[in-house]
């Protein structure tokens, strides 16, 4: 069940209706918990046990830690145990095969045959997101930043809240728990605020992102099928165009999902902060990371970079911390060395930028924008390519030094550049006068505009929907 499926709209309608018909706060929260279990179980009910385990461990550990005095060894031990248990879950289900394969390959290069074959473990959808939420809860309680929640159901709903369960945004307990206690009233403002976020997200995901796979998949191959690429056949321009299309696809796909999650949560009276802020208009790499997948980058900052020492130590240690954070951030995206390389490149770029400019404005906006976005585009290649060999082929296409094939993709792909620019201009307050205009709030203008938007979305709706790219992470 994904947000653009007809079945999700039926599910949402039922849950929304029942939620606002119920009067008591507890009844509503219980309904959301049941709905979240149904939503998650829709993919594979067997993984309900896994998320249940994560919830239970996190609740128990936080309860235990909260009863110990700050600084007490048992409290620290509880923290380590809680984090380890959660990391063990993610390591088993997401990284076991990767590390086993890597170890086997390494041993075979020195002539040793370990004789094991990696287990093919099914990746539970959304595991990276809910495990990170669980860890942040345990850490916040153990640090004393948050009081422990004694009601298991509250912790369960925080970790499993269906709008953000499978692909984020990663929500912090400190912002979510108080919202569970607040009194909620259905109002037109709430409905329209949700509609606004959901409609924009739907436009991003179903209107744009799903239609870009036709530029990307023929060149890069099916992301789920190894070894199905034939890059030699494609011209240099086709490889560059497909990379551009992937950059647009992953942005519109993930930002679209996040916006829809925000809109759905809003309809139930919950506020989830934004996850993207037009990163393709960033003039510097540090600015890019303040605007791309904000909930993950801030999580990595608060629970990894700062505990490592952040920038409070020597310059060398700051660069090391940046590298470690970004390499692990890369690995978070997928169990493959290409993701590690992607993270390492961004870590190196952040360190380089820091060393060069030390927080000052870098070059002029335009130069900075071009340099940053070209770098980001180039790093999407290892992120999406199936191997380092493919990455090198595509990078060589960017230089024009490669003898390309003759296969082309549609030349219309270049229209993505003005489309992304338009989105950034609108999202960053361009046409402010128009958006602030009272005429847009006139009921006839608003409703006919919504009719036009619906007509457009239906025409753009992909008849064969694609799953969200970030589900695999």
């Amino acid at each position, binding site marked *: 069940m994904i947000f653009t499926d007809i079945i999700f709209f039926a599910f949402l309608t039922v849950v929304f209706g029942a939620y606002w018909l119920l009067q008591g706060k507890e009844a509503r929260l219980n309904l959301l918990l049941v709905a979240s279990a149904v939503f998650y179980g829709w993919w594979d009910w067997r993984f309900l046990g896994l998320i249940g385990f994560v919830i239970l461990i996190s609740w128990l550990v936080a309860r235990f830690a909260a009863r110990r005095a700050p600084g007490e060894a048992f409290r620290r031990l509880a923290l380590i145990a809680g984090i380890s248990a959660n990391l063990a879950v993610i390591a088993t289900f997401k990284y076991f095969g990767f590390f086993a394969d890597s170890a086997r390959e390494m041993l075979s290069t020195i002539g040793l045959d370990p004789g094991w074959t990696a287990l093919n473990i099914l990746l539970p959808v959304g595991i990276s997101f809910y495990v990170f939420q669980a860890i942040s809860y345990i850490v916040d309680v153990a640090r004393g930043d948050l009081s422990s929640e004694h009601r298991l159901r509250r912790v369960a709903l925080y970790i499993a809240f269906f709008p953000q369960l499978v692909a984020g945004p990663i929500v912090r307990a400190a912002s979510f728990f108080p919202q569970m206690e607040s009194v909620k009233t259905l109002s*037109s*403002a709430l409905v*329209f*605020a949700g509609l*606004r976020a959901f*409609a*924009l997200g739907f*436009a991003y995901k*179903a*209107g*744009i992102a*799903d*239609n870009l796979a*036709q*530029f990307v998949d023929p060149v890069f191959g099916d992301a789920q099928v190894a070894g199905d690429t034939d890059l030699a056949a494609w011209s240099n321009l086709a490889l560059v165009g497909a990379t551009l299309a992937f950059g647009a696809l992953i942005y519109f796909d993930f930002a679209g999902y996040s916006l829809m999650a925000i809109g759905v949560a809003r309809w139930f009276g919950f506020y989830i902060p934004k996850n993207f802020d037009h990163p393709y208009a960033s003039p510097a790499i540090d600015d890019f990371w303040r605007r791309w997948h904000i909930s993950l980058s801030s999580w990595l900052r608060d629970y990894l970079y700062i505990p490592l020492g952040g920038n409070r130590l020597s310059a060398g240690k700051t660069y090391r911390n940046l590298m470690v954070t970004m390499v692990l951030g890369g690995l978070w995206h997928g169990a493959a060395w290409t993701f590690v390389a992607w993270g390492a490149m961004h870590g190196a770029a952040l360190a380089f930028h820091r060393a060069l400019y030390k927080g000052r404005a870098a070059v002029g906006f335009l130069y900075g924008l071009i340099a940053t976005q070209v770098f980001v585009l180039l790093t999407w290649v290892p992120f999406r390519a199936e191997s380092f060999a493919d990455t090198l082929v595509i990078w060589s296409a960017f230089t024009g030094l490669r003898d390309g094939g003759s296969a082309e993709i*549609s030349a*219309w792909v270049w*229209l*993505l550049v*003005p*489309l992304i620019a*338009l*989105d950034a201009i*609108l*999202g960053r307050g361009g*046409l402010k006068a*128009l*958006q602030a205009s009272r005429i*847009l*709030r*006139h*009921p*006839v*203008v*608003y*409703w*006919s*505009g*919504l*009719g*036009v*938007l*619906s*007509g*457009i*979305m*239906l*025409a*753009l*709706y*992909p*008849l*064969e929907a694609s799953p969200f790219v970030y589900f695999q992470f």
Partner: protein
Amino acid sequence: MHWSFFAVAALGLLLAHGLKLPRAGSRFISAAAFIVGLLTTAFLIKSLAAANGIGRTTDFDRFVNAAVIEVSQDYAPIIVFTGASYSRNGVDPERLTLALRERGYPHRVVSLSIEAASILERDQHLQQFIELSGKVPDLVFIEVAEDFDHRAAYMFGNAKFSMRAIEQFDLPTSAWTGFGILGGACQGLKGCVLDAGYLGLHTALNVLNVGLIGSGERSASVKAVPAYDPQSEPRATSEHTLSLKSTPASIYQGPQWIRSFRYQQQNRLLAQGTRAIAYYQPPTLDPDARAYIDGLCEGELFAFDCFSPNDPQLMAQLNGDYWFDSSHLLDGGTAIYNAWLAQEIIASGMLERRQ
């Protein structure tokens, strides 16, 4: 993909970013404004798509393009065979062309046939072929089968809500299908209600252009794939004992809706310049299915050339390992049937007959 995708997407982004909280107003006026906005946009997008030849891409478009390429390289008179799966497996245009040319007839045969295609869907793609090729077929062979005549919305038994199902139910096709359902061309009360419901939904999805720009392509740029789909091995699960017994044919007419459709199709094709229309059905193991076309040939289609497979000599030749399943021929069976068909077409004199 087409440039119009980006234009429409840009407009969508403008609106999605621009729309904020509306002021309170009359619910009636708000609903009317929404519907007017939606329908006007649907009309404009449909017009834009039509002007640029954009449609939802289906296998049928691929077959049409293959046929267009075929006739673009050949100035011979064209014979179009248009049918469903019987024809997709049972009519080999190359074999038929060769058989006719060996006997001195220069015609080029093409096939526009796909599984579960009603006469209405096939007519849409026949018109698409005429438009894209710029050539009117000299002869048009139309497959008839009882299943399609007696279930106007046959597609819903096979592929609901698919690209192909949504694409075909434009307003004229929906009107003809609705006429058929109203006339009882459906299966029982429950079947009729379901077909009518699905028809309404598919028509709405078509009118509102669902997927038209996102999944659509210019018909002319769709990859060409020949329609003929030769089968070399019998279907694993099929049992196919040939019964040469045929139910005696009675003189028969199709239901009112299909007779009306055939009548207007005949007039249109003849007005467009087609010299003659013929009806046919590839062989099947079902004696009742063969008897149905026998009856039509003697009845409703009496004035037309009509090629029923209910020829004992033909069926005797097909008494062996020639069947993919009970309704479809293997390639070897197609070779026998096509040789017989070429002979019958020549014998009918329709290749030489003047208009």
